[in-house]
């Protein structure tokens, strides 16, 4: 079997375990595919097109599984996802053209690297600050009494500007088509510019700018990942660089992980985990920065440190999710077993 897939038993098992970890992330946060898988494949010595193409196909497969799981829980806004996709596609095209333009100037690598580091750090800080919660107990109680208590304040403010045409979201609230298209275009631009799936931007953008609940943001972001993953897989598939063996092994693990991660959203208090996720993004920012420095100064050991930081922090957050999930099950003994 392993010979047929072109992988040794050890490498196959490694990919299954790695896929499980990524699946837990994908299911719980609606992101975390390509920014973990692509560097891992590159470190393992796969050529860049194979690493990106296989990562795209894997993101597509995992997004299918996680979307199905969130669909069962009614947490996917398909109309919002489809509307965003138009903007995302245009943004990806614009982003890739920008990269080619910078390439002709000879500064693409530096600009993309710095942008990636700054973006990861900014989103990491946003999540960490949000999780550390500077709101008082009274403010929290007031927020709990508010009708849109699951929608962040900044999103409520953006939603208060009624710029037609207004679209009705799955939860019955309204958002301007301009906001949705703007978010889609912005996410696509970043995705095309950085060459990543973009879930780590898409999910926060849906939550903080369009203003859905966090669960709906995760589900809808996954649906967006499914569509952009399909486009990416088709593009790289045409070039014949997707390794089906790698994708199959990763999917075997991620299918289970995504189920557990998606199921955990019903039990785990997001506030317990969000701070770790924010810290993980900050560490990822540092890891990418080290990788860039390693490339500029030709210091291979920094590349290894970068890889260990990236995988180590992801493994830690995955363990935290599973730990809090187990704690929640113990604390709520009367909760139904299936999420």
């Amino acid at each position, binding site marked *: 079997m392993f010979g*047929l*897939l*072109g992988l040794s038993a050890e490498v196959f098992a490694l990919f299954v375990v790695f896929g499980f970890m990524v699946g837990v992330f994908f299911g719980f946060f609606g992101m975390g595919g390509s920014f973990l898988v692509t560097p891992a494949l590159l470190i393992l010595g796969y050529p860049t097109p194979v690493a990106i193409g296989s990562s795209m*196909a*894997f993101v*597509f*497969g*995992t997004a*299918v*599984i996680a979307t*199905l*799981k969130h669909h069962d829980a009614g947490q996917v806004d398909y109309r919002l996802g489809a509307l965003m996709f138009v903007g995302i596609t245009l943004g990806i095209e614009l982003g890739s053209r920008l990269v080619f333009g910078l390439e002709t100037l000879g500064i693409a690598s530096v600009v993309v690297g710095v942008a990636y580091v700054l973006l990861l750090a900014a989103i990491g800080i946003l999540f960490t600050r949000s999780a550390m919660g500077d709101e008082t107990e009274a403010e929290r109680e007031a927020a709990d009494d508010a009708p849109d208590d699951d929608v962040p304040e900044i999103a409520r403010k953006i939603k208060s500007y009624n710029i037609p045409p207004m679209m009705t979201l799955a939860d019955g609230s309204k958002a301007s088509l301009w906001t949705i298209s703007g978010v889609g275009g912005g996410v696509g631009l970043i995705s095309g510019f950085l060459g990543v799936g973009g879930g780590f931007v898409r999910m926060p953008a849906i939550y903080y700018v369009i203003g859905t609940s966090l669960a709906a943001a995760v589900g809808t972001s996954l649906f967006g990942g499914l569509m952009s993953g*399909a486009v990416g*897989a*088709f*593009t*790289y*598939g*045409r*070039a*014949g*660089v*997707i*390794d*089906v*063996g790698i*994708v*199959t092994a990763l*999917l*075997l693990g991620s*299918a*289970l992980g995504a*189920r557990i991660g998606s*199921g955990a959203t019903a039990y785990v208090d997001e506030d317990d985990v969000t701070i770790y996720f924010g810290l993980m993004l900050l560490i990822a920012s540092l890891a990418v920065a080290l990788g860039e420095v390693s490339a500029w100064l030709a210091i291979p050991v920094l590349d290894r440190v970068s890889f260990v930081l990236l995988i180590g922090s992801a493994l830690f957050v995955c363990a935290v999710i599973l730990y809090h999930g*187990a704690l929640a*099950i*113990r604390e709520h*003994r009367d909760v139904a*077993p*299936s999420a």
Partner: protein
Amino acid sequence: MTGTELLPGASPTVAALLVIGLVLLEAALLYAAYGILEDVLAPVVFKRIQQI
């Protein structure tokens, strides 16, 4: 093993669609299979966790 190797002589578009179809099929099968596994094992696992 790439799409080109799976279907030698096929056009790039057909090879790409084959890979996407294969990934979609794998995802659907794994979703269904793990779903059955979840239905069977989840109550046992939940019970074990609560007993720890």
